[in-house]
């Protein structure tokens, strides 16, 4: 089974999260610059004369697709690296993925997700 992890994190945590994932052997990821807000609903900024409310704040969305056997390790790494304890730390969404095809080799599914030196090789899982 393949899963997609979408983690909405603080802009300044993006390198910490990338490093924490690389540390456990999760190599492939995409990041997006996104804007939005959670329950907290934004922050106050200071204008020319007085303050105003801004509700769409810049965030980073990290997208990873991985085997479900590696899911908890990835979530754990993100939780540790993206945490400050203040409102605005973000959310992690997990959803199923139907298929993955690596364009270069035409490998499909779990095989397409495996790289030399990655988390699966460390766990001594071999390609099916």
């Amino acid at each position, binding site marked *: 089974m393949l899963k997609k992890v979408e983690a909405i994190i603080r802009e300044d945590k993006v390198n910490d999260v990338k490093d924490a994932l690389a540390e456990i052997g999760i190599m492939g990821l995409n990041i997006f610059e996104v804007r939005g807000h959670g329950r907290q609903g934004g922050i*106050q*900024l*200071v*204008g*020319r*004369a*007085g*303050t*105003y*409310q*801004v*509700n769409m704040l810049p965030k980073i969305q990290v997208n990873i697709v991985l085997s479900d056997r590696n899911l908890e390790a990835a979530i754990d790494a993100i939780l540790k690296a993206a945490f400050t304890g203040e409102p605005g730390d973000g959310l992690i969404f997990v959803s199923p993925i139907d298929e993955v095809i690596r364009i270069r080799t035409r490998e499909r599914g779990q095989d397409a997700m495996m790289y030399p030196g990655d988390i699966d090789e460390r766990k001594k899982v071999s390609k099916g």
Partner: protein
Amino acid sequence: MVNQINAGDTAWILVCCSLVLLMTPALAMFYGGMVRRKNVLSTLTLSYIFMALIGVQWVAFGYSLAFGTSIHGWIGGLNFIGFHGVDAVPNPDYSKTIPQGLFAAFQMMFAVITPALITGAFVERVRFKSFLLFSLLWATLVYDPLCHWVWGQGGWLKNLGVLDFAGGTVVHIAAGFSALAFALVIGPRKGFGTSPMEPNNIPLTVLGAGLLWVGWFGFNAGSALAANGVAVNALLTTNTSAATAGLVWMVLSWLDGRPSTLGIATGMVVGLAAVTPASGFITPMASMVVGAVAAPLSYYAMRFRDRRKLDESLDVWACHGIASTWGMIAAGLFATVSVNSDGANGLFFGNPGQIGIQILAAIVTMGFAFSMTYVLAKALNASIGLRVSPMEEEVGLDISSHGERSYS
């Protein structure tokens, strides 16, 4: 006495002419940074176009209407049409030691920036064609007569003895109250008051404010029309007022939250606008009072404007109209002939009558600029329309009016 061209005076006003020219691009940046990213080019163009538009209008007939032979104190005659006779020979009515051509060029830069100031009122929604027509009409029917009243030989306010060194009435009160009238007619931007309208590039605005300060040395010190002690005094009062207003604005902003960068830059510009009419008549210490009082006046005028839900978008009225009204009054309080023997004494130097003249000139300017702009804007709105369509406004004027994007 033969009018003799003075090389020092001429060199200095040539430099000042360039400094004041620089203020229009600076203003474009100051405004351009404060709008949303879809309207940056539009906002820059609204200011820049005046270098072209007035650059032609002034030579063709604007200078003549402002500084030609007075017709009963109301308007200049047509004797300088096409800069006829405006050449290397000084015109003793205005400046005995520099060529009249240079005086006319220096005055042109004021005529360029004044209507550009008004554009802050209607950015992000004005229709370009209507704006061009309005601008040409405003320059001809508002700026040129007003300039004649205050600075033209035989102008009726000049004859009353009004003190307006570098354009408190002609430039800043006129622009500020015209902005207010135009904003009332054109109405608020789509989504004003409900969705935040964040500045796209505050660094650009800060750079613009800095260059305005540089240019303002030419604006105020150059208005001495000579390289002399009055020019030096004007430069000192200009700097002192801007510095004081910047500091006071910083404190006001801090009390309301944090010392905002945009706020500090705004405060500096307010200090510059405030001291403009008084700069050549008061001492540096008096200009400290001018700046210190101007900052809270404009700051709370801005808050008042915002509470009234009036979308005078970039606060031309609060920054220029209010600050310079105070500057006109301040000239009536602090002016002293020990600074400028061609000036007059104010209230604190034993001449209480001066303050009445100052207030009269300010009120006349407000009334004239506001009502003329209101009528012009209403007429254009009823005929060709002042605003772009809601869809064009949504897309942004960069694409819908100019077919360009600032950033790809």
